[in-house]
């Protein structure tokens, strides 16, 4: 059986690892902020809006969406293969494409703000 080398694969593995590390390190804190601190009233609407609108905050959020989504795309597509959905999981473009669209949406929102 002959198969062509999968040249973009290392890039997706790199993004998977980058997104995995980023989410492991800061996702719990982010979830704490929007899921506990906001409903508890420790962070006002204006303060949260200021954080999202802050130029540094914006860049960080878009960067996180980029890494998070490519982490999800890679891990989830192989999980689908492991769950017996080989046909769906092998359509890499579907998952990486969705991650790219999500990143684009985040970037667009940040630019036109």
């Amino acid at each position, binding site marked *: 059986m002959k198969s062509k080398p999968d040249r973009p694969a290392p890039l997706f593995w790199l993004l998977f690892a980058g997104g995995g590390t980023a989410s492991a390190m800061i996702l*719990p804190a982010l979830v704490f902020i929007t899921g506990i601190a906001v409903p508890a009233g420790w962070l006002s609407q204006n303060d949260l809006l200021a954080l999202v609108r802050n130029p540094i905050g914006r860049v960080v959020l878009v960067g996180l969406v980029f890494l998070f*989504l490519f982490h999800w795309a890679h891990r*989830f597509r192989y999980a689908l293969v492991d769950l017996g959905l080989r046909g769906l999981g092998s359509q890499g473009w579907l998952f990486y494409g969705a991650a790219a669209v999500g990143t684009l949406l985040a970037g667009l929102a940040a630019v036109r*703000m």
Partner: protein
Amino acid sequence: MTTELTRPLPRSWWLQKSPYFQFMIRELTSLAVLAYSSLIVWALWSANDKGPFSTFFDFLETPLSVWLHMLVLVAALYHTGSWIALTPKVMVLWQDDEQVDPDLIAGANGILFLAITGVLLWLVL
């Protein structure tokens, strides 16, 4: 002619042993990462104006949002734990001729996680 031979595997294979189950849960924590990414995109799109942003902010205060956040938090912490547990396998460090203790590498990453969480919450709250 060649055919690809794959061994038949029941779809429920990951329910049959605890480590398999833990592996699958670990992989599926990526869905929580996807869910939170969507929330960030929503926040960015609504931050244009006060009106849309208050819709977003009001959602955060609903019980539905709080429950979803708790689910995502459990998954996120599981991801953090399993990711840190794997760091010594990915990062094998040598000092002179001796391998650095794997527990030290995982421990250092755990401390880094706590420090980042602490600094981020201190900055924001």
